[in-house]
């Protein structure tokens, strides 16, 4: 007999909740109008594609995507889940946005609160297990193997961990565990880490246990309602069975401009550590309706990736061109990302830059030249030598733009007070910073 309320639903063993509400503020202008999971990556993907594809490749066909910050692009990207084969009668992908309730209504206060507010969504499928994912990371992982590990250890909560260099360990949540993987201590961004096993933000919980802790957590006024800061420590304190599942493949948190660029560049090396050409573990994304790309008689392309719909007549070295990018004759692109539908005019030279979607780079302009001076406006974001151009910006013909320069979304010729923008300067839409 069916339980009331779940009669019409197929019971799912494990469903996924994908946290995709983060802004990713350290990506600067790249995340001004979109959430971090919706940022373009690797020539045709958005960051969230990796977690979503991992789900379907691991046999998880029911995924709730929690959105909050700037969800428009994310919503239209995911749609009804067709590219991931998640347009299902039972389950599939569901976008869960913050909503108003009868008595109250609020934003998701923390990661745990976001899941708490959607308890009814999870209950609908009465799963044994829930996997909590973040839409911010680049990796390929078989969650079904992690679930096997979880079951074998009779675990209440299993946390996927990866070995990080000791000097970076203090940036992560660190799991200290016995040799067999049993966790005895959790340190959030510790000054003196006891181990180098960092949490990847991938958790499998027994739903019944997590449910109880979510409710308890939401009743506690001093809680930050965060998995890492509250739920995990609380469960540890109560002596729940908690295990670390060690992952050893490629995993990157592309949270900074430098990390984002480096991870993209990893893809163009001869035998990339991260292989997108693996037919056993495909990464899915909506395919644009574009023709195959065309490489002209005067083109030269080396150590690069080029997506469909591109037209290349210039030189492209160690770079990635996203769908519909156009590189005119004489233009030179090195160590850069040119995102969808952007156009690089004749004889323009672009070095170490990230050019967002629908940007026009005027003929004879130069980007990424000069001294490596930190950005004056946001030195903590633009400090790795990369110049970043926001979407829909227009770079005037003949402009000379230095390093660590930020060009605002939609900035046009009138916003350039001079054709020379020195390293570390910024160009704002309307001339002033918000």
């Amino acid at each position, binding site marked *: 007999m069916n339980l009331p309320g779940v009669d019409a639903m197929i019971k799912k063993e494990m469903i996924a909740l994908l946290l995709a509400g983060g802004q990713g503020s350290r990506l600067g202008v790249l995340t001004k109008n979109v959430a971090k999971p919706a940022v373009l990556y*690797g*020539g*045709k993907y958005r960051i969230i594609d990796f977690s979503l594809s991992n789900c379907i490749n691991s046999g998880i066909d029911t995924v709730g995507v929690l959105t909050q910050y700037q969800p428009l692009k994310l919503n239209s990207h995911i749609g009804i889940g067709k*590219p991931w084969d998640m347009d299902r009668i039972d389950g599939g992908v569901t976008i869960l946005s913050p909503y108003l309730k009868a008595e109250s209504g609020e934003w998701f206060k923390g990661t745990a609160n976001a899941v708490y507010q959607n308890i009814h969504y999870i209950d609908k499928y009465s799963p044994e297990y829930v996997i909590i994912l973040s839409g911010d990371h680049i990796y390929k992982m078989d969650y079904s193997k992690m679930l096997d590990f979880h079951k074998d250890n009779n675990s209440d909560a299993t946390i996927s961990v990866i070995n990080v260099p000791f000097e970076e360990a203090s940036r992560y949540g660190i799991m200290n565990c016995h040799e067999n993987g049993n966790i005895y201590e959790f340190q959030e961004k510790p000054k003196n880490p006891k181990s180098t096993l960092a949490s990847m933000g991938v958790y499998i919980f027994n739903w019944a246990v997590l449910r109880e802790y979510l409710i308890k957590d939401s009743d506690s006024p001093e809680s930050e309602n965060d998995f890492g800061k509250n739920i995990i420590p609380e469960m540890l304190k109560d002596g729940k069975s908690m295990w670390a599942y060690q992952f050893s493949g490629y995993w990157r948190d592309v949270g900074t401009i430098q990390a984002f660029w480096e991870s993209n560049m990893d*893809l*163009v090396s*001869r035998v990339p550590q991260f292989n*997108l*050409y693996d037919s056993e573990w*495909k*990464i*899915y*994304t909506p*395919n644009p*309706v574009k*023709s*195959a*790309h*065309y*490489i*002209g*008689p*005067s*083109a*030269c*392309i*080396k*150590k*690069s*990736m*080029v*997506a*469909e719909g591109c037209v290349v007549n210039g030189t*492209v070295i160690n770079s*990635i*061109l*996203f769908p519909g990018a156009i590189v005119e004759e004489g233009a030179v692109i090195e160590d850069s990302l040119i995102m969808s539908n952007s156009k690089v005019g004749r004889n323009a030279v672009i070095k170490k830059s990230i050019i967002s979607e629908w940007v026009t780079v005027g003929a004879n302009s130069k980007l990424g030249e000069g001294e490596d001076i930190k950005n004056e406006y946001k030195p903590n974001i633009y400090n790795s030598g990369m110049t970043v151009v926001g979407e829909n910006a227009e770079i005037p013909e003949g402009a000379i733009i230095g390093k660590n320069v930020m060009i605002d979304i939609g900035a046009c010729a009138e916003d350039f007070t001079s054709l020379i923008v020195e390293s570390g300067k910024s160009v704002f839409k309307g001339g002033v910073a918000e």
Partner: protein
Amino acid sequence: MKNVMGIILSGGRNTKLKELSTMRSSPAVPVGGKYRAIDFVLSNMVNSGITNVGVITQYSFRSLMDHLGSGKEWDLDRKNDGLFIFPPFLSDESSGWYRGTADSMYNNLTFLKRSNEEYVIISQGNCIYTTTFDDMLKTHKENDADITIAYREMSDVPIEELSNMGILQVDSNQRVIDFQEKPMHPNTLYGSLGTYMIRRELLISLLEESVAHGYYDFVLDIIIKMLPKLRVYGYKFNGYWRSISSVQMYYKCNMELLKLEVSQELLNSAKIYTKVKDEAPTKFNEEAEVKNSIVADGCIIEGTVENSVLFRGVTVKKGAIVKDSIIMQGSVVEENSTLSYAILDKNVILSKGRCLKGEENWPIIIGKNVMV
């Protein structure tokens, strides 16, 4: 164009395509790096606002059915109307084999009768062109025509190809005064595109009458016979158009796509929809030397590629040289091998150090799944 339905004839056997059509019908032949020939006419119909399309198939239609699926990629998986595929079938009245183009439509008369559009556009599945049919419909109405035939001046097509076409003559009002089907000696350069506009009810009655008399071909038995009785008009099409009718035409068409003006008109003036597979963008390694070529997603290139069309998932290894060739999905050109004026069908492996060379007017073809 809410008031028009489409029929795509994808039927006849084509031996002039040699190995390319042993396993597939000509509309399913891969073209331009990521398309199949039928994508063009299907996209033309969709871009004209036609949402009710029947595809009539006969020979080796497995790959075509596989490609079309539910019509999703053309936005034709509709609740009402959408895409319908009609292979031959056995019943009390039909023989399980279409005896001609008129017979193939007659066998699917239910589709025509059940539809409620006023006009039908009948077209061929193996022609490469980009257009919409709005203007043709307008002309059809203005001329108060019974049948309008799209035609084109074929001066850019080798003369021997004209003998594979319908050749027509029009008077100063564009009325068709003569129509020769596949003539030995064509009397004009005006070739029919095999695209006809006709009122649905007239089509139904013409088909019923013709088949009742034991005549089964739409061109020979309806158009040519009815020329004196019906108002048959021509509609001149001036754009790029190729029929994938022979290996030479197939090769020519693909190579012409490397010209910017052709690819602009054909691929970028409107959206051409096709079934896509999820491939990563193409990767060029350090040794890659690629010039004047079309390359689809999922390729890995380490060699030299010039004046060629590469379909998805092709690998060109170090030291390999590919010139003036067409390489279909999943094929591999191993190290230090050379290819020129060649067509490699799907999943061909050209082993290390091999050399294959055809001629421009006689490209060499390597059939599917072959290891050379």
